[in-house]
């Protein structure tokens, strides 16, 4: 699978983009790009995928992108254009030139085990943001704690401590103090009576 094909796959599969028919027709003009995609119902991105091959002429490429954006301006389109440059390395001047008129993602051709991941990160700006799982939903400290505490330590004291924990350190400390004081109270009182 080529990088450009992977780009299309990710955008369509994860971003809800649809592939525009080739050649791309804007107004009365036709443009030849490797691929062209349009965002779904949430955004108005127009993504063009350009493969940089051995015979790609950078001047022609720049002219083609400028013409496209000019055509969109003429039609008063508010589409924002993103150019994804795949395969070969993009010349810095080329990126510079076209980034004046559109967003440029010079992804090249990532290789290795996490090639897909790298590509997805390049494209992530075009993909929807997922609301992170609310922290609260997987925090059940009390349940976790009860599961962690050994059985012989569970009991009235632990229940009281867990109940007081949200009130802060002092409340817990006091509960501990109460428990210890309660244990020794009888012995001390006995002693006081003896002394009297």
């Amino acid at each position, binding site marked *: 699978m080529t990088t450009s094909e992977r780009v299309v796959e990710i955008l369509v599969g994860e971003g809800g983009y649809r592939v525009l028919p080739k050649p791309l027709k804007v107004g009365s003009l036709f443009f030849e790009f490797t691929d062209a995609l349009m965002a779904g119902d949430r955004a108005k991105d127009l993504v063009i995928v350009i493969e940089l091959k051995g015979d790609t002429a950078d001047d022609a490429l720049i002219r083609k992108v400028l013409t496209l954006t000019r055509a969109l301006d003429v039609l008063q389109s508010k589409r924002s254009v993103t150019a994804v440059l795949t395969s070969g390395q993009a010349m810095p001047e080329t990126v510079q030139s076209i980034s004046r008129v559109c*967003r440029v993602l010079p992804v090249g051709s990532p290789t290795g085990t996490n090639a897909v991941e790298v590509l997805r990160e390049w494209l992530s700006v075009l993909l929807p943001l997922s609301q992170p799982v609310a922290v609260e939903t997987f925090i059940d400290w009390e349940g976790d*704690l009860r599961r962690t505490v050994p059985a012989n330590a569970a009991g009235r004291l632990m229940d009281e401590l867990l109940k007081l924990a949200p009130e802060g350190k002092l409340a817990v400390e006091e509960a501990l103090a109460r428990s210890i004081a309660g244990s020794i109270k009888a012995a001390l009182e006995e002693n006081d009576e003896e002394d009297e």
Partner: protein
Amino acid sequence: MMAPRLKTLVIENFRSLRGKVVIPLDAQVVLVHGSNGMGKTSVLSALELALTGKIAHLATDGDGYRGYLTSLGTAGGSIDLTTSGPLKPDTGIAGSLRFSDSEFNPKPLLDSGDAKFFSDRCYLPQATLSRLLEIYDDQKTNTTSPLTQFVKELLGLDPLDALVDGLFPAYNVTRVRNLVSEYRRFESLRTSLRDETVRNNQSITNATRSSTERLATLNARLAQLPSAAPMFVNAATNVEDLRQQLETARQDDRMLTDLTSAASELRSVAERWRSLPVEDTTHDRANMERREQATARALGAWRADAGAQLDQALAIVRSVFSDVPSIDDGPEESRAIAQRRAEAEARRCTTLINNSAAAAERVKALEATIQRASARIAELNTALAARVVDVRTLASALAGVASHIAGENCPVCDRDFSEASAEPLSSHIAAKIANLTSEAGRLQSLANERAEESNRLSVAQRDLPSAGGGQLSPEDMAELTVRAAQMTSAGQRLNALAPAAATGAALMAEATAAREPVILARRRDEQSSSILPEIDRVVTSHTGRLASTFDSIDDALLVSKRNLDSQIATAERTVSLRITVLSELELYAKDLESIRSFESENEKVAVRMAIVESAAKQVDTCRDSAKKVADAAATVRSDIVKTVFNTSLNKVWRDLFVRLAPSEQFVPTFKLPTGEDGKVEAVLETLHRSGKSAGSPGAMLSQGNLNTAALTLFLALHLSVPTRMPWLVLDDPVQSMDDVHIAQFAALLRTLSKGMERQIVVAVHERALFDYLTLELSPAFPGDSLISVEITRNFEGDAVANPVAYSYQEDRAFAA
């Protein structure tokens, strides 16, 4: 229900916004633009004030900023904010602030909890952005870093912290003591009970041993005691009965008393016997008689010859001094006294005679002095009477006049002196003054001499009466002269008699010495005849024999004493043995008593000990449970932290960061606490895309990407917490991002607005960026909305807001 939106913000005379501006906010995205100094930051600050009542990033330095809210040259201002609906049921939809240089009257829309949430999580002021990484990487040793604080709040780990920290004392007995004030007392009670048991057991052992030993001694002593029935003691013996038995047998006491009084009688008889003088032999007695007679004769001869002469001489002296002793008082003593008296009297008489002669001489001299002084004074008086004028006064008066003399005219009488003399007046006066002065000197010396003479006269007259003392009358003079001669001669005679007197004294002593033993012998004969019957009686009662059957009286007394002494010794031994036995018996009884009391004490202590030990066990159980709970809490806490960081926060942050900086090889991340001590202390670091950890963000990222890291950190934190309000306010967040980042940022903003349904308010200062964002964020679908506001100033310098609302327009380039 749709989430409430910020709707309208009305600002008057607030900081750089002079005059009144109305800013509509009721859109999904609001872009605020103004070049530097126009007041776009003021708009966001006004929004914060209306929502929270303070400017959080300024309030950390105190409330001083409140005095600088009013625009220069205005009396005061106000901020009013409305929302499209209440955030929570029963809360308002408006917040406001009235202020002037002296007034600050906020009525914020949000309560304090929500206000803090807004300030921390929804509003990113420009000042905070640049400090954000710093804030979150702040690793102070003793305080909780803001990041740690955030993590704790976010995760709701406070209860676990409370458990871990609150149960900490359970691990250490010292802390238990500090925590529970009675615990120390409890511990010392436990120790003291233990000590008491040990002490009691020791005492029982000691008492048992000593009672056993005492029993052996006691039985040994009892066996020695003379008694009708043999007595002994064992564990079954009634000690009190035995004691009474011993107490009643008292005849040995009486016997000892009788023997002691007999001994003292014997002693007194022996004493008297010994005091009798030793008897002389008959031969000695005759000798003594003879010697007595011989000495008496010699003395008689002396008395007739030398004694008579001495007596005569003594008589002469006694005629003047009647107390001079006689020859019988000791011839030598009386002679010596008489001689001393005679010589002393002779000296006295001579002295008196001499004194009288000296006094007569002195009187004669004084009388001469008186006569001469009187004559000289009379003479001087005559000399001084001739010149009674005070010449000295006249001389000084003339000297005063001398300075007034000019020429020959007398300054006193005004007559011309040249008529009287050829000598000049001034020299005449000078000579006169000289004469007068010398005359005054002579008169002065005469007066001095007269004073001396009269002084001499008065001294002599004063001494005269006393000088006559010591003079003798002629009668006395004659008598003293005679006596002096008499006494001198008596003294010489007595001196010559000295050897005779010594002989007499020796003779007298010899006679006395010879007489003495004769008298003593006669007295002893009388005494011994009276004491012998008594000795006989005493000796018979102690030896059974008559004193006369012994070799001598002394032998008889010695044997009696020896018998008596041995009887007394026996009696004393018995008495002391009995006393020893009684006291031993008493000690034995005490030993038994103390063993019993220690044993009963030990039983009581054991009961108390059981209670204390069970309490101690309870405490141990309690501490043990507490420790296990604390351990579990620490484990759970670190598990939760790891889970949250790995599954949530780092993931979101990374996602956001790579969107804005897709080509950056290092991604910032929170490093997790590695230690198992459970403390949550997150630190910042970067991870290479390959997963290898690298240095801190400050060291690894470019300035632009650091800014990106900070911005995405803020957004990640914003997204990680449960949403309390759907607002996100960013003040110029893209200051130093390059163009690529800005394009990505625009996409991110749109994602947040559309995907996360946040109402976004962004202030930007760069015109191009403002236009670009306006384009990027303009509505793409029906229902989307965007408001852009430009803040400028009119000619008067008042702030002007130009809002533009963009609505959806169908895209003609592509069919939807």
